[in-house]
């Protein structure tokens, strides 16, 4: 009986002492995180670019993201568009994620979806190994003066060849949305 109590006490001590690990957790290096998207539109005929920026360096939580469009687009103008994705969660070592997306081009596709009130048309100018579009580079052609939202999507593992899939229609493509940002765009003369 006393032996048992002693055994119990020893076990209790062992359990209490054995579990005092307060080791700090490892702060993960979130190398797959995308914090910034910059869509740069350069007028094909030359001139100052228009940039659309979405920045959220601390990721999902913390501070709210900042969304910025540098200025209006000119009407009836063709622009060469290009996308840059960054991971700037560590300010001392900003990573460029665009290259990674290009490496896995087969598994990625950008979509550009203007609101119906916004008079712009978009087209892909790049393609993956199978000849299917990626959308890192595009052309954007403006029509009449108008305003509206432009939604930019990056889909991971879409079915690029599904019927109905176009630069403005990702519905049939499926896959996971890695990026979905919206910019308020103005086309003025």
């Amino acid at each position, binding site marked *: *009986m006393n032996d048992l109590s002693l055994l119990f006490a020893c076990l209790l001590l062992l359990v209490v002492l054995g579990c005092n*690990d307060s080791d700090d957790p490892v702060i993960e290096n979130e190398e797959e995180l995308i914090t910034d998207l910059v869509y740069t539109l350069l007028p094909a005929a030359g001139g100052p670019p228009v940039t659309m920026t979405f920045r959220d360096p601390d990721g999902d939580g913390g501070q709210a993201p900042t969304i910025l469009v540098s200025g209006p687009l000119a009407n009836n103008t063709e622009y060469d568009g290009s996308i840059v994705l960054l991971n700037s969660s560590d300010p001392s070592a900003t990573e460029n994620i665009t290259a990674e997306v290009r490496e896995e081009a087969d598994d990625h596709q950008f979509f550009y979806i203007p609101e119906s009130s916004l008079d712009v048309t978009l087209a892909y100018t790049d393609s993956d190994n199978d000849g299917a579009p990626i959308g890192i580079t595009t052309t954007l052609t403006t029509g009449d003066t108008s305003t509206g939202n432009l939604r930019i999507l990056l889909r991971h593992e879409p079915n690029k060849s599904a019927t109905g899939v176009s630069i403005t229609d990702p519905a049939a493509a499926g896959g996971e949305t890695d*990026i979905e940002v919206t910019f308020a765009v103005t086309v003025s003369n």
Partner: protein
Amino acid sequence: MLKWLLCSFPLLLCTSGRAQTCDGRITGTVIDEHNDERLAFTTVYLQQEGRGVEAGIDGEFELTNICSGPVSIRFSHIGCDPETVEFDFRADTNLTVYLHHHDNYTETVTVTSTGANVAYEQSLDRQSDRQISEVLESITGISSLRTGTAAAKPVYDGLYGNRLSIQNNGIAQAGQQWGNDHAPEIDPWVAAYVRVVDGVDALRYGGSTLGPTVLIEPATLTPRTQQEGKVAYGFRSNGLGHTLNARVTDSAYVAYRLSGSLKLAGDQQAPDYYLTNTGRREGNAAMQLAKFINPRMTARLYYSLFSANVGVLRGSHIGNLSDLEEAIGRTVPYFTSSDFSYSLSSPRQTVVHHLLKGEIHYQASDNERLIFRYGGQIDDRKEYDVRRGSDERAALKLLQTTQFLEGNYRRTLAEKSTLEAGVQFESVANDNQPGTGVLPLIPNYNGRRGSAFATYHREPGALQYHLGLRYDRQYFEALTISRDLPRRIINYQHTFNALGGAAGASVQLGERLSTEIEFTYRERAPQINELYSQGLHQGVSGIEEGDSSLAIERSGKLNLGLHYGSADGRLTINGSVFAQRVADFINLEPQPELRLTIRGAFPVFKYRGVDAALYGAKINVLAQIGRLDVDSRLALLYGQNLTDDVALIYMPPTNWRTHLGYTLPSEVQLTLSSLFTARQGRITTEQDFLPPPPAYMLFDFRLSRDFALGGRALSLALEVENLFDTAYRDYLDRQRYYADAPGRSLNFRLAYSW
């Protein structure tokens, strides 16, 4: 002396005297299989003649004027699974009957095997190809909260997860109980008895609960344990699943039992398409040892390993809210392959769970018993997502170690009253393993819990009553990572004190009817996910945020029950109703504003304490009409968030299960089962992405036959699940947004026991 092995328990039968006609005598003793104590007041019923007697306080009984010929005697006792003994009566006989009695459990919730002809353990063995939660559904009032085919966890009286603790062989099952997509890591093949206890009976168990506790136990090794074994193979056409089970029991230097299971299944199939990536691989093993050192002391050791690799429906893995909306509208889920496959790719989960239990029973005197119990668990869980980098890199890697220690004292006082008291200590360390490249949803934490309880039972006669108290002191240390930059570690500490108490009584109203009433007050400390979850929960496509200022939940529950048992034991009716009020019920609620991230907008869910009310009713009818066995169970539940005056989410809708069993003269057993699940009509459109699915009804059909081969038995079963290949979705299935539940399956099962 002849030795009989009947049903799942050993029976010693001695004969003496000469054969007589209708003046024979059967005497005997009823003993608790667990601890060799004599069971007082067992009802002993002679089924042929429709008469019976009650055993005395010393467990002894006597039946007189027995005619020669076949005799069938049914033994039933409160807290036991009833057993029927059948033999050919030729001479005066003395029986020793061992009943599987659960220490001092009142009959708050009792599981009775489906079909009187099937021993309890055997009915669980038949379901060894399922998940443990599906096996638990045979208990009235239990439903499963599912993540498609990947995971299922039990819901009892509207409580699950942190509010329903699960005791795996007497040790609170550790693991990631917070995750609705995490199933309890228990192999049904090892389990022999499952039940739910509530009120006073539940006070002795640890784990996070708001009252009820699920008990899952293997068959006990006793000094009478003999050599036996069983192997079984099962095949399921849906998913082309193979299950192989084996079990060997013997006594050498110690009594031991070794069990093992292997499962392999591929993609399941809904009536109209494959559920791509819903395969499963599982390998489990368990070892039970018992050493009966001397009549006073028994040492027991138990080890179990559960290891599974489970695929999650590919089409359920989506990005943001707009993806979800697109996925919902589809007739066939995204990524549905037109071919069957055994392969598993992301998203998938792997889990390895070890449980080691050591126990010493010491019978200090005739009426004092001591138990020392140790339980250690390691839970290693990894979850793999579809991700831009390598899918072979887990997005979630958790390693949890749990240690549990208990000292338990029981004293039998005069006049059938018992006092039981215990102290428990539990320590948990939960660590995210580095290398995921993702900030963890659940922070690293350490927890310690010290508990003490005492219960008192008194069974003087027609009126029985019991009461108990429990106190838990829970300490948490959470090591969180800040969400703003620069990332840093912030340490939080909490101490919660939780009280519990229950009192109840049952009254025997005449010979056939008994009623019971029980009131339970329990407090539950918030758990770490409720306090500190932070981040995107893929399964629900939402951002989940804990609240470190949550208070403990306080619950009051009143349970009323009524039991009727007909004189011949052929009709049993159990009915119960409960009302539960919970203050600071920790509720996960969608926030009005969406959170904008670079991946789009996400709903935000936060934990908040609300006032809640739960009401429910359960009815269970067991009847034997000639060769027909009827088992019908109905459960109704109503859950309301009183603070906001809306329904509580994930409350099981009304469900009604019926089994009809019929034994043909050729000893072929036919079983037809039906399940009706009503629509959960109380959820509003604001509360969910999709309105709850319509009601559905499913049928299963089964043919089985046992062949006796000397002392051995071969049993064959053919079964059709979802007989009419009904396409349906269940409200409690979190993948109902994406896909139908599995369709028809033709199953075949072969078991050989010796």
